[in-house]
């Protein structure tokens, strides 16, 4: 791969405190965007904030100035309803002007509630219809094999999404084609739209199921930043023969007491101004407490 000053390499130096702070910044930004649009998915966004922060500020090989660069690592937001957690990150990394965030939720904006690859730079594939993106990711990983490129493809799925039958077609295909360059990350927050995921339809034991389909499985605490970093840092080589599933056990609404106590109520909703002030104060206080440890600044 040619050297390029615009390339963000894999394994970029960042402290654990810096990633935690970045995850909380994602939460604050999502709250603002949802308020702007009038409705949004709070608790689902909050459960994967550490995962998204770790990937974008440490793990992924990216070139924001050239969003379609063929050798970039891919990130597919299978659980597309949490795009409010991704838009601020892509703006911060320079994929587009931060002013675009002000248009979120407006007619004609390239930034929608679910990501659209035709409209927004940095979106490797559109999502919104649950169950599709692992199949798409398998296709992108196959394309890497065909073109002999060493990029990795990450697909972030919800746990409710795993109830879709198509996911298991993709799981089977990825194993059949030995796609060691494909990483599925399950944001296992335990809830889907109408209640506890496995009350609606049991999806467990996830680790056993993925392993039985031939995947290499890592089951971790999805809010434990050192573990997230270490898990992504020690992924097998892209030429390996086994797709990887990271089951990230998370808490829906993580980081805000009110959301954690009532994760279902805040799957989709809108905070009142008073509630929003409380949520922002809770997150900001935590960030300030940890601030002296963090490297860099969250803009």
């Amino acid at each position, binding site marked *: 791969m040619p050297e390029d000053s615009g390339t963000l390499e894999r394994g970029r130096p960042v402290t654990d405190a810096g990633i935690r702070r970045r995850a909380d910044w994602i939460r604050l930004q999502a709250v603002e965007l949802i308020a702007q649009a009038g409705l949004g998915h709070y608790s689902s966004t909050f459960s994967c904030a550490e995962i998204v922060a770790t990937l974008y500020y440490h793990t992924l090989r990216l070139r924001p100035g050239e969003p379609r660069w063929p050798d970039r690592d891919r990130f597919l937001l299978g659980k597309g309803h949490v795009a409010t957690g991704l838009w601020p990150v892509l703006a911060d990394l320079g994929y587009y002007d931060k002013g675009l965030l002000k248009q979120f939720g407006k007619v004609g904006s390239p930034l929608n509630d679910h990501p659209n690859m035709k409209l927004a730079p940095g979106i490797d594939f559109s999502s919104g219809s649950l169950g599709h993106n692992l199949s798409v990711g398998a296709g992108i990983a196959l394309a890497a094999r065909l073109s002999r490129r060493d990029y990795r493809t990450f697909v972030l799925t919800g746990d409710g999404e795993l109830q879709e039958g198509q996911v298991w077609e993709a799981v*089977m295909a990825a194993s059949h084609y030995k796609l060691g360059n494909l990483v599925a990350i399950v944001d296992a927050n335990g809830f889907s739209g109408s209640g506890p995921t496995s009350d609606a339809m049991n999806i467990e034991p996830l680790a056993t199921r993925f392993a039985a389909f031939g995947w290499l499985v890592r089951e971790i605490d999805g809010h434990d930043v050192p573990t997230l970093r270490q898990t992504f840092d020690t992924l097998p080589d892209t030429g390996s023969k086994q797709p990887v599933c990271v089951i990230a056990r998370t808490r829906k609404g993580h980081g805000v007491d009110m959301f954690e106590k009532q994760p279902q109520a805040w799957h989709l909703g809108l905070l009142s101004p008073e509630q929003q002030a409380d949520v922002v104060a809770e997150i900001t206080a935590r960030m300030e407490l940890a601030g002296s440890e963090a490297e860099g600044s969250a803009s």
Partner: protein
Amino acid sequence: MTTPTRKMVDVFSDIDRDTALKANPSGYAITEIAAGDDRIVTLTADLSNVLAEFRGAFPDRYIELGIAETNSVSLAAGLASCGYVPYIFSMSPFGMLKTAEQWRTDADYNHLPVRLVGRLSGLAMGYFGTSHYAVEDIAIARTFANTTVLSPADSNAVLSLMRSTVDNDGPVYVRIAEAADRVYDVPPDIPRGTWPRLREGSDLTLAGHGMGVGLAVQAADVLAAEHGIRADVYDSAYLKPYDEAAIADTASRTGKVLTIEDHTVNGGLGAIVAETVGRHKIQADLAQAALPDVDLEVGVPAELYEYYGLTVAGVVARALELVKG
């Protein structure tokens, strides 16, 4: 019913090269066009035999996905997002019908060059039962904003229309008619969105796609020879984009349009003509030789087509009704 004159089409056996063009034109065509274009890959959901020749020539560019059509479409969209041009070969009922949402969301909305080649369309698998019918596929496919919908008339049209797909930037659905009668002696040049005019007349219009084109041409010849009726005949190969100018022109001139297709009366060519005639405020009598909006019978295709009037005699009879009012 009469004794069947045609047997079931067998696409499940490997076909040797000599008969490939005649019996498996889409499989022949993809092998030909892939030779000069490394971007082209093929996928099937357990329909590998129609790609025997391709598999032999380009084993690394063939991706079998098992009986999993929805995964095939989304995975192909992923390949297309990386610069590949994937052709998915599928049995029609399990292609566009089963994967409509994957097609819309992953291929069509994202403007990706995914191709779905539907074998065994219409009633071609009649003997296997209604689960194996694909008679609603055009109605579905043509509602997708960016999808090109093609229905070649015969083997030569399959060749030229398959070739035309290579450099199409968006998604394409190609509906293959099995055992359609020959219409063209050589692969026809069909510019995008146009309908070749195969006969000129002013008494009525016959427009068909797929197997309906051969029926239209043969019926026109019978009408001319035996009834002195001159039909304007079109090959409606492009169902999206379709030839709006040709419809408006011929409907204005003849005032009578009969559409011919092995598809439900809902949403297919008949609907395309009706919508166009209505939009242009043209006074015209319209009729359809198509499949009725009821539970369909099961049987060997040749018998079924006869039962539903999708034969030369059936089309002639409908044309005479239309002309005589």
